[in-house]
């Protein structure tokens, strides 16, 4: 027995080693069977999103800055905008994301007229009849610098009739505490170069404006169904901060040009809460506080509810209330000796309410990702009787 036992000991040891070794060999083989071998080689570049969106704005109202009305009274602010946007997002390898975005606005407005740039005076005096086209191209590159860190850099250019803009952005994003929180720091710079107008409509050379923005944001998971986000932003503007064609009724019954300070610093802080609701819905609440050195204080509150129906249909409803004080120099009848003055209704004291609805259908395809179709409508109304109806339609593919 003892001899048999002693002769079987090496066999047992070999068997044990084999048993111990096989799983390790299997794991080693498993290591070799990485995603690439199982799923095939990952393409060098993959499209993540292609979409287009058309939005129509239909605005009616009156403001004292507009000359499309009585000399001492408010003029028309009637405006129609047809806005087309296209977006293309592509992932290159594991760490690079490219995004190209092109918005184009077709505008009828009471502002300067593009069509008579060289041959006639701009349409700043008569009526809201001009047609302008504004276009922009933006490119952003996102670089995943580590498992928790992403850098994004972007540049863009905006063109519309008398107006050129160059835009730059840099963003740093870092996830914290096992992805429970995300910290975002960003900076943006816009340089605007545009024609200045005299009150009668003739051009007075070129002028410029600089806008620098710095922002910090933090989102934090509070529970398996709750997310809270905090944000603060500082914006510094320098240069010609009027559009130069706005006018102000004066105490002598005439109109004079709007004059605004050449410096403005703005602060805004917001808090938002996103809550999952157990009946396949999500509720978002947001409050934003704003203050600047032109004595504007504003509060905005927004609520949004999204509800999934029948699996592939998501309907949404939103409400927003905004209230603001006017800038220190807002007036509808200015003394001629005033240093600063504006009658721009956007810069006056006002309350605004916006009510909207949306519907989105998603349809998975066999080979081309998920097709989505979205329709939305918003009605915006201010206490000074300005009203805007907005209809928007989007379609695209998410891969």
């Amino acid at each position, binding site marked *: 027995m003892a001899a048999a036992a002693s002769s079987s000991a090496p066999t047992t040891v070999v068997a044990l080693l084999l048993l111990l070794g096989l799983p390790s060999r299997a794991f080693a083989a498993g290591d070799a069977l990485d995603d690439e071998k199982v799923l095939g080689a990952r393409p060098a570049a993959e499209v993540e999103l292609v979409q287009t969106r058309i939005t129509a704005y239909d605005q009616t109202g009156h403001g004292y800055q507009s000359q499309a009305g009585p000399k001492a009274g408010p003029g028309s602010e009637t405006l129609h905008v047809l806005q087309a946007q296209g977006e293309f997002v592509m992932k290159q390898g594991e760490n690079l994301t490219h995004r190209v975005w092109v918005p184009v606005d077709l505008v009828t407005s009471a502002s300067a007229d593009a069509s008579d740039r060289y041959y006639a005076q701009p349409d700043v005096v008569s009526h809201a009849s001009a047609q302008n086209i504004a276009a922009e191209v933006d490119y952003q590159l996102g670089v995943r610098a580590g498992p928790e860190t992403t850098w994004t850099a972007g540049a863009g250019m905006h063109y519309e009739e008398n107006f050129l803009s160059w835009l730059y952005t840099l963003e740093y994003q870092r996830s*914290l505490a096992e992805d*429970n929180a995300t910290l975002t720091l960003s900076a943006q710079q816009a340089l605007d170069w545009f024609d200045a107008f005299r009150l009668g409509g003739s051009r007075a050379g070129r002028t410029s404006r600089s806008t620098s923005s710095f922002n910090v944001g*933090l989102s934090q998971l509070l529970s398996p169904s709750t*997310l809270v986000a905090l*944000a603060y*932003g500082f914006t510094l503007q320098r240069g010609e901060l009027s559009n130069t064609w706005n006018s102000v009724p004066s105490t002598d019954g005439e109109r004079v040009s709007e004059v605004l300070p050449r410096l403005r610093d703005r602060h805004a802080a917001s808090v938002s809460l996103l809550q999952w609701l157990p009946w396949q819905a999500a509720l978002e609440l947001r409050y934003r506080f704003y203050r600047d050195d*032109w004595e504007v204080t504003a509060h905005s509150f927004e609520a949004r509810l999204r509800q999934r129906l029948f699996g592939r249909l998501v309907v949404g409803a939103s409400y927003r209330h*905004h209230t603001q004080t006017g800038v220190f120099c807002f007036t509808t009848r200015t003394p001629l000796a005033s240093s600063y003055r504006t009658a721009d209704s*956007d810069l006056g004291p*006002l309350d605004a309410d916006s009510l909207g609805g949306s519907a989105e259908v998603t349809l998975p395809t066999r080979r081309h990702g998920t097709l989505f179709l979205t329709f939305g409508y918003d009605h915006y109304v201010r206490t000074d009787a300005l009203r805007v109806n907005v209809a928007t339609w989007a379609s695209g593919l998410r891969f």
Partner: protein
Amino acid sequence: MPTFARLLLRSLLLAAGLGLGVALGGCAVVPQNRRAHFADPLMRDSDDALDAHRKRKLYTTREAAAGGDGKRAGGGCSCQ
């Protein structure tokens, strides 16, 4: 208030906010296997970029309170 004092006060407020944010970010309260709801498209914490742009255009060109939302203020329409 002198400009320097105002700048200092703002910087301190910003630093305090950042500190609070980082402190909050240090709390790992939801393990990864309990985050299924956050993967649902309903729980996007913002609109898609094009929808956000058209909403921003609606508000920032008709109100005096643009900026400070992590997006650029200015550029494009010179109505502000």
